[in-house]
Every structure is written in structure tokens, then in C-alpha cells.
């Protein structure tokens, strides 16, 4: 069992847990993910590593209550424990000195973006953060992002905080004003990542996205997570989760992400997930 050391509710139906898993914490790198199971009947839920503390032996995860399993997870409290917790999974982000890097975060995507932005800054890049959410009450980790970004631009879909607009609006304005960055990285709901990739394609800016395909094992054993990248089938769990956004077949990914919609009828009504991508979160 893996104990929840602390719980914070960051926004409606969005929670941050610190989970005790020293071996995972020892190895975790920005861009990787874990898979957890709440209990004996639980499904395997993939979640990105939002932070890690090697001394305390903890991994931080941030998740939105999207359906049945994440709602079940959200019911736990500090002191409770999850049955299984495996990781770190996937290939770490490729961090190098690129020059100017724009990190675009949609909704809960702020959480996985944070450690990568921190690494990018440490590697000597000029880091620009763009974070968006549907509404003011869904904005979180703004302070943390400020610490790891040289510039941070915030937006809300409804204009209830800072400004009105999608992250892509902010990105376009930024590029028009400041010129092309050397790398864009986008993490958030699929439609948001697709929109960012389409935009940067116009400008010819290299763009990485972190895919959240449906998974089972996360070890390359089942192929549930397949994605077409540049015409070839890849497994997100072992070949990714980050891929060149200009090569990903987003239409196929969107269709695949809807696979179990009907089966999850028994799930409770969904809470808002706070995606700032202008699209419906989780497909």
C-alpha cells in the first residue's frame, strides 16, 4: 500500500496528492508518469508526475475527477493509501539548452508542465509559461509556475481572470510580438494540444505534446495506448508519452479516447475538469 501524505483540493474536483513511494521518487524525472490502482477492484489509472521529493520519498500527482475511477480516487484523504503505485513510466522529457522555450498548459496540464519547465530553466533556457483554464476558479499553481518561468502568461476562456481567450490566442500573440521560440511544449486536453500543434505548424516551430491515451499496463504489453506518429504505430507508454506534435494523428487519438464512453454509464455525473483548451476535456 502507498500512503497519501497530504491532500490539497486545488479547484473544484481537482486534487493534489503527495504519495509515499520512495523507490519511484528516487528515479522520477520530469515528463514521466505513474499508474495507480485505488483498491483491489480498481482500474489502472495513469497520471503524470507533477513533482517529486527524493528526500521525503514522495511523488506529487494532480488529477481532475473525470469519471468513475478518478472520482473514487478523489474520495481518499491524507492518511489513506492506494493499493498499487507503479513507475516511473515512459521516457523522460528531452531537456537541453534550446534557447527560448514556450510551455503551454491547458487545465490540469499545468501540473505535468511544471517540473518540465523547472528542468528547462535549470538547463539555461528562457522559459515562457502560458497557462489557461475555463474560468478563474480552475486556475492553480500560478505561484509555482512563476518560480520556474521567466515570463508567465495566464488566460481564461470566459475572461474571469487576467484576460479572455484560449491558450492558442495567447501563443499567437506572443509569437507575433516576440518572434519564434525555439521549442513549444503543450500539455493538456487533446483538442488543445491539437490546436497548439496546428498553430505552431504555420510558423514552423518544433512542438512536443504529451499524450494521454487510454492505457492498461503501461509497460508495452497491451497496445491499448497505440498512436499513429508520422504514419507509424507507436505505444505511448513506452515510446512516449511525448511526441512531435506535428506528426501525431490527433483525429485518431480523439476517436480512440472515446472508446469506453458507453461502458462508463455507471459513472457519476462528471465534474468540471477545468480544461482551458476550449474543447471538452478527456475527449
Amino acid at each position, binding site marked *: 500500500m502507498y500512503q497519501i501524505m497530504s491532500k490539497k483540493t486545488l479547484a473544484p474536483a481537482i486534487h493534489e496528492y503527495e504519495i509515499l513511494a520512495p523507490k519511484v521518487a528516487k528515479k522520477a524525472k520530469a515528463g514521466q508518469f505513474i499508474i495507480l490502482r485505488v483498491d483491489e477492484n*480498481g482500474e489502472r489509472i495513469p497520471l503524470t508526475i507533477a513533482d517529486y521529493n527524493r528526500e521525503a520519498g514522495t511523488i506529487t500527482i494532480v488529477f481532475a475527477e473525470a469519471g468513475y475511477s478518478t472520482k*473514487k480516487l478523489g474520495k481518499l484523504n491524507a492518511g489513506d493509501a492506494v493499493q498499487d503505485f507503479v513507475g516511473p513510466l515512459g521516457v523522460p522529457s528531452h531537456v537541453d539548452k534550446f534557447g527560448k522555450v514556450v510551455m503551454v498548459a491547458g487545465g490540469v496540464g499545468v501540473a505535468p508542465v511544471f517540473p518540465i519547465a523547472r528542468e528547462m530553466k535549470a538547463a539555461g533556457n528562457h522559459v515562457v509559461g502560458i497557462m489557461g483554464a475555463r474560468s478563474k476558479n480552475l486556475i492553480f499553481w500560478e505561484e509555482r509556475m512563476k518560480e520556474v518561468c521567466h515570463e508567465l502568461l495566464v488566460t481564461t476562456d470566459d475572461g474571469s481572470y487576467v484576460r479572455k481567450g484560449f491558450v492558442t490566442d495567447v501563443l499567437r500573440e506572443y509569437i507575433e510580438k516576440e518572434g519564434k521560440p525555439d521549442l513549444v511544449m503543450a500539455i493538456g486536453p487533446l483538442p488543445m494540444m491539437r490546436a497548439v500543434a496546428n498553430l505552431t505548424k504555420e510558423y514552423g516551430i518544433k512542438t512536443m505534446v504529451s499524450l494521454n491515451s487510454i492505457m492498461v499496463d503501461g509497460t508495452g504489453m497491451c*497496445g*491499448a495506448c497505440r498512436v499513429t506518429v508520422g504514419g507509424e504505430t507507436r505505444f505511448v507508454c513506452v515510446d512516449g508519452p511525448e511526441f512531435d506534435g506535428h506528426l501525431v494523428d490527433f483525429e485518431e487519438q480523439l476517436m480512440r479516447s472515446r472508446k469506453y464512453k458507453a461502458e462508463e454509464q455507471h459513472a457519476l455525473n462528471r465534474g468540471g475538469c477545468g480544461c482551458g483548451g476550449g474543447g471538452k476535456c478527456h475527449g
Partner: protein
Amino acid sequence: MAKQIIPKKHPMPHQDPQVRAKNFDEVALGYTEELAVAEAERCLNCKKPLCKQGCPVGVDIPEFIALVKERKFDEAARVIKRTNALPAVCGRVCPQENQCEKFCVVGKKHEPVGIGRLERFVGDYIMNKEEEIEKSEPTGYKVAIVGSGPAGLACAADLARWGHSVTIFEALHTPGGVLMYGIPEFRLPKRIVQKEIENLKKMGVEIETNAIIGQIASLDELLNEEGYDAVFLGTGAGTPYFMNLPGENLNGVYSANEFLTRSNLMKAYRFPVSDTPIKVGKKVAVLGGGNVAMDAARTALRLGAEEVYIVYRRSRAELPARLEEIEHAEEEGVKFLFLTNPTRYIGNEEGWLTGLECIKMELGEPDASGRRKPIPIAGSEFVLPVDIAIVAIGQGPNPLLTKTTPDLETNKRGNIVADETGKTSKEGVYAGGDVVTGAATVIKAMGAGRVAARSIHEYLMAKGPKKN
């Protein structure tokens, strides 16, 4: 004088096909003591037992069968366990018709002795009894086993018995490898696998689940930082192959591994009691003809599919699955489309599979494998309307570990290279099972695990007593 031999094996009681096609309980119910003794009577107790040569681990078949005849079931178990640690498993899943029973002398004129059924009987008999565990003095040596499939379990058992301190690392949340996530409950009840794993734990073997070597620790870290004196790699062949046909990523196209893992390991057949969903559909096509294909097809039936087809490019005679599984699948109503090869998947606008285009085949000249090569018949394409397709055309080794261990030699298919003693290109590192041979059988994996255990033991003993 030659005695009169009953020409046929004593049949094993089975669940009725109509009933069992709707449940996940075991299909074959096993011999009673009376039936086992009667079947044992059919064995001639040959001086030169050919059957034994057919068994990959050389079980002392006449010896154990003679003990069954005398109702000395405990002793029979001890004889089997000298070479095969998991009789209850192998009696159920070995392809006996290609191994021990293929060579049985009785089989020349009649049906061979039901060696597998007898082995299963003995295995089940002792399953319910406490076994005394013989263990040597602790040697102080630490061995890590990566992967908890039959290869890893068998290797761990021997090493623990010889006094080494053994830790198994398993990537998934439940130990057992394919025995847990692949082979369905109705063929191999999971309590049997878990019982064997409990026995290992009683011997002092530590099992760490949720531990992927290559991610949580590299092989070098196990050896150099975590103090393991030797490592055995039994990571299996878990990566599913696809056919690379157009439309393969449509919703509704599963690998057999995913379909079976959702059902077996994640218990999707109990959805929504268990949280993991599975799509079953009304019409299901399974691509392939091995055990994996039969398991997927029969699982789909049990999950409620109305029609299930096995699409296989050769003919019935070439089906690589165990004969018993083919017969069971037929009895349960799985439909076989032989000499048929898929050419592409057809989907609707929402990205869902609606059909599988296939082409008819005919058998030509024998190919390298000695089997007649199927060739497509031009213009014979047709569409099989299905909403689920399950690809069961084979699996390759998982690269997670080898990727992070560049100095471990692999072949071009990604299999770890090991000699006949299990030794790899890396000092102190041994390997066996599907990761070395490619997808094979439970008994071969177990045999390889035991051979490697012997090599590891010799390697450690040659170092002398453990110094701290």
C-alpha cells in the same frame, strides 16, 4: 502376456458446453481417484519410456504413474516435483499431444496414456495438503529474479531451496506472468497459480510487485548498488505484434494481450464490480490460430458475444493451439474460417470497426517450416461484418529492460542471448523462458528457469562462502 489395453483414455468430466460458454468456471473438472487409478492402469510401465523423452523437463512418467496405480499419490507428487515444480499447472496447459503423449507406446495403436490428466490429478491432490518444505542453510547470497512468470517462479523455488535469499521483481500488480494475465480462469483457475506463489513465499522468497526493472532500478544498480550477487531474467514475450494492416488503430481492434489482460488480470468480466471496462461487441473476429487465439475467442463468447470467428490462414491441421482447446472452442460454438487471411479493417466515421476484409487462401508448396505455404486466391476478397477484432498473431520480448542495459547481448528480434545453461553475455546475469526462446510454453519456460537456477547456484558456490 500382454494384457488387454482399454483403447481410449478415460474421459475427464467436463462442464456442459452450452452452460460453460456462459461462465468463467473451469471447463475440465479433473479425474476422481477412481478414474485416475483406472487411467494409470493403461500405462505399460515401459523399461525404455519414450514418453519421458517427449517431456521438455523429463518427468519420470512411468515411475509416478506406477505410484498412482498404488494410490500413493503423495509419493507420485514427489516424483513429479523432482523435475516439474508446477504439476497442477502443466497437467492443464502442456500441449501433451506434441510432447509426452506423442511418444507414448500405447499411443501407437490406441489413444496414448492420459499423462497430462494424471499429472493434473496428482498436482491437485497435493495442492490441498500442506507440503513440508526442505531448505538448506542460508548461504548469504542474494539473487534477484526479474519477472514472475513460470520461468521466474521455477528459478526462485530452486534457489530458495538451496539457501539463497531470493527477491522477485514483477512489473504488474499481481505475480504469475502469463499464468495470471493471459491464460483465462476457465482453463487455469487463478487460485492454483496463487497457491504456488504462496508456497514460494513460505519458502522465504520475497515478491516485489509494481517494480519494473529498467525503470525503478537498472540491472547494473541491482548488481552494484543493491547487493545482488546474481540476477535471473524471466521477462517473457509480452509485446503484442500487429499485422500493420490499414485501419488497425480503429476502435474495436484489440491485441489479444489487451483483451485477455482486461478480462483476466483486471477482472473486466465482473464489470462494473471491477472498474475496468471491456468492449465485447456482437460479432468478434480473432486473428490467429494458437492458444492465445483460442483463449481470446472463448473469452469473447463468455463475455456475451453472439458470434465469434477464428480467422486463420492455414487449415485445421496446422492450428498451433493445443488440441483440447480447439475441440473445446468448437464445442462451445466458435466458428472457424480456415484458409482466410485478413487484408484490412473497415471503420465508420466515428472511428469504430465495422468489418474485416479477408482474402481466401490455398495451400501451396511446403515452406521453411515444412508446412504448406498459404497463397492468396486473387479476387476472393470478402468482408466479414464484425465490431471487434482481436489480433493474436504472436508476441515479442518487452524491451524495457534490455533498452537500459546496452551491454546485454540480444538478437535481432530483441530476445536475450543465453547459452544452454542460461548464462548471458553479462557476468552474473542469467536468462530463460520466452524472453530467450520467443513465445513458447509454460513447461519450457519452467525448465529454463530451473536450468538457470542450477547455473546460478554453481556460479555462487564457486565464489566460496559469502563475504560481507
